[in-house]
């Protein structure tokens, strides 16, 4: 009986102390109440698995920009300056998990809008949910062109380029080269399929005599590319177009080197920029045509240098195209909030349509097109080369391909969306 009493006393003691502590914070909250509540941005991103490091770079780039603004007291709205809180959730590359995250962030955590997604498959699922629930989703990376074309809608914006633009940009370069027999190797999922579609549609329009001699479809995350490499070489293409990324790109390059593939044919790798060159180090191959949105040391502008330094100080690493995507995404949403003066969905969307911001990356400004909410993001192409100054390969003979001309015509998109509704 005695121990029961002791327990009761201790228990009530804990309750009393807890109540006292909470009332203390009530006091400080009352004092702090003069500051406006922070804006809550929900972030859904694939932080696990083979896409991890790209995904984290999107996030870090975004955080760097948000930190810049928070340091000044927050972003300016009609009510005054409001700081920004980021709530981050891992969708594990799974569409159903992403939708669950979106629901939790918006319905439970009361986020004002959502940002994110790196996986195309995930994007289509989350975008659908946001459309049904009238939640603004800002896409910073996932590229399937369907998300702003046939399956686009009012509530989705994208500040990165998309697969349509990537393919057409690549074609605008390769149409001037003397190669007509092309081989393809892409991961068999939504992104790989979209990239293949986009480049082949563009080349068929722009390059007379363009033929697909072989298309290979390895599974995402394949351990072994050898049979795909030999099948690719067996078809004797003059050039190979690939959107392989991450460990798949690494495995492909390492294994293909041994077969002398890079000597036999030209290889154009989409998004073979820093996120690949850096981990590859000296294992990379020279003379590969790498397309990337941010080729490290280019452009050598003061804004780029400042961004590189801030990013390096904050994360300990040099930024990559993904960091820039995150940074640009934040630049856009902040500009939209300032223009609209609010984070309420409908006025914010109206403010974001047609907005232009100054950016890091080859183009000086990027604009969000009104008809499809797609940014006119450019891309560069260069050849990989060993460097005496850096532990990773760099790009030489860099050519900038502006985004605008590679976008699909607005009326085509409107027509496609109307057809999809039937």
């Amino acid at each position, binding site marked *: 009986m005695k121990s029961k009493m002791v327990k009761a006393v201790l228990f009530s003691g804990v309750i009393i102390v807890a109540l006292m502590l909470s009332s203390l914070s009530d006091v400080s909250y009352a004092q702090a109440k003069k500051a406006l509540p922070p804006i809550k941005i929900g972030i859904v991103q694939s*932080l*696990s*698995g*083979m896409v*991890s*490091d790209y995904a*984290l770079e999107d996030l870090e780039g975004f955080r760097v920009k948000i930190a810049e603004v928070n340091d000044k007291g927050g972003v300016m709205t009609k009510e005054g300056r409001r700081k920004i809180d980021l709530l981050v959730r891992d969708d594990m590359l799974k569409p159903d998990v992403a939708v669950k995250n979106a629901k939790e962030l918006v319905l439970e955590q009361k986020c004002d809008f959502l940002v994110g997604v790196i996986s195309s498959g995930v994007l289509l699922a989350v975008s659908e949910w946001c459309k049904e629930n009238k939640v603004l989703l800002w896409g910073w990376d996932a590229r399937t062109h369907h998300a702003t074309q046939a399956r686009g809608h009012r509530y989705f914006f994208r500040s990165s380029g998309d697969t349509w633009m990537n393919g057409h940009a690549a074609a605008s370069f390769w149409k001037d080269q003397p190669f007509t027999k092309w081989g393809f190797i892409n991961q*068999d999922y939504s992104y790989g399929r979209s990239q293949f579609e986009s480049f082949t549609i563009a080349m068929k329009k722009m390059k007379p005599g363009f033929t697909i001699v*072989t*298309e*290979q*479809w*390895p*599974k995402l*995350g*394949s*351990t*072994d590319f*050898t*049979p*795909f*490499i*030999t*099948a690719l*070489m*067996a078809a004797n293409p003059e050039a190979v177009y690939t959107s392989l990324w*991450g*460990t*798949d*790109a*690494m*495995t492909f390059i*390492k*294994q293909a*080197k*041994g*077969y*002398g593939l890079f000597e036999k044919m030209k290889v154009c790798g989409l998004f073979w920029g820093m996120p690949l060159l850096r*981990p*590859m*180090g*000296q*294992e990379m191959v020279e003379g590969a045509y790498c397309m990337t949105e941010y080729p490290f040391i280019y452009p050598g502008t003061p804004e780029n240098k400042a961004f590189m330094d801030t990013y390096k100080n904050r994360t300990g690493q040099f930024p990559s195209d993904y960091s820039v995507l995150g940074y640009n995404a934040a630049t856009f949403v902040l500009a939209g909030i300032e223009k609209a003066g609010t984070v309420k969905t409908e006025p914010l969307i109206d403010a974001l349509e047609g907005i232009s911001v100054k950016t890091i990356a080859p183009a000086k400004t990027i604009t969000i097109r009104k008809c499809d909410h797609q940014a006119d993001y450019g891309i560069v192409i260069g050849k990989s080369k060993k460097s005496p100054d850096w532990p990773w390969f760099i790009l030489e003979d860099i050519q900038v391909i502006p985004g605008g001309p590679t976008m699909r015509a607005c009326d085509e998109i409107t027509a496609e969306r109307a057809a999809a509704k039937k």
Partner: protein
Amino acid sequence: MTGWVLMSQFLSGLTTAMIYFLIAAGLTLILGVLKIMNFAQGGIYMLGAYTCYTFIKAFGGTNSGFWLTLIIAPIAVAAFFCILEALLMRRFYEKVALYMLLLTYGILIATYDMARMIWGWIIKTAPMPPMFQRPVAIFGHPFPLYNVFLIFMGFFMFFLIWIVIRKTAWGKTMRAAADDREMTAALGINVPLVFTSVFGFGAWIAAMGGALVAPMAGMAADMGIDAGIIAFIVVVIAGLGSLPGALLAALICGEVQAFGILVLPELAIAFMYLVLIVVLIVRPWGLFGKPITIK
């Protein structure tokens, strides 16, 4: 289709097959002797690859460093899993099979987080040892020397495991403990110790597989999950617990895929599963397995 195209496709299928075999062999051993479906097998393979990466880099990417790594890395990983087996898994052999499944699955998830914590998020690749950086000429065409090495190692490992199981005293004890646990214990043999050693051997095989693959592939913490699925498919096609079955199953899967993509590249993702479906329909107990009889 020239002769070289067929030959090179056959050899590349052989490379894939050896990788599949190395991942599956340990699983089939553990399944056959310990009667547990080790969901963590893919995770062990992944840790083998990462550990190999660390050692190769620590030894400066040299040839001798590579050989040393192949000796040390798989043993280090196997030792870790021996300890795990003794501490955690030993308690579950006598319990309901479901608990052991959950445990190995939990270990798999834990290995994934372990890899991320120790080696970080960024994808990696182990530097290719200098001696393998040149191709060898087969019928006048370049073929990566490392692939030749891998194929050789696959067969070598098969014979090594076969000899250990069939010809050594340890192997005999393993098989006895697998057949009749109580009787073996009654003969004075420390059965828990035997089980730990079997698990350790199975882990060593998987880790060796990972270590051999490390210089020829990129690595991410989730590579174990894909490998684990492959291991299961191979083991089911093979017949649970059969080592020669595992080799044959791996060869079938590797070659079906290699030749399949010459003819139907669109179905690349499906070939292995098609083989599995056919086997399950025609011979559900696997190629070398025994049909279950009701006693």
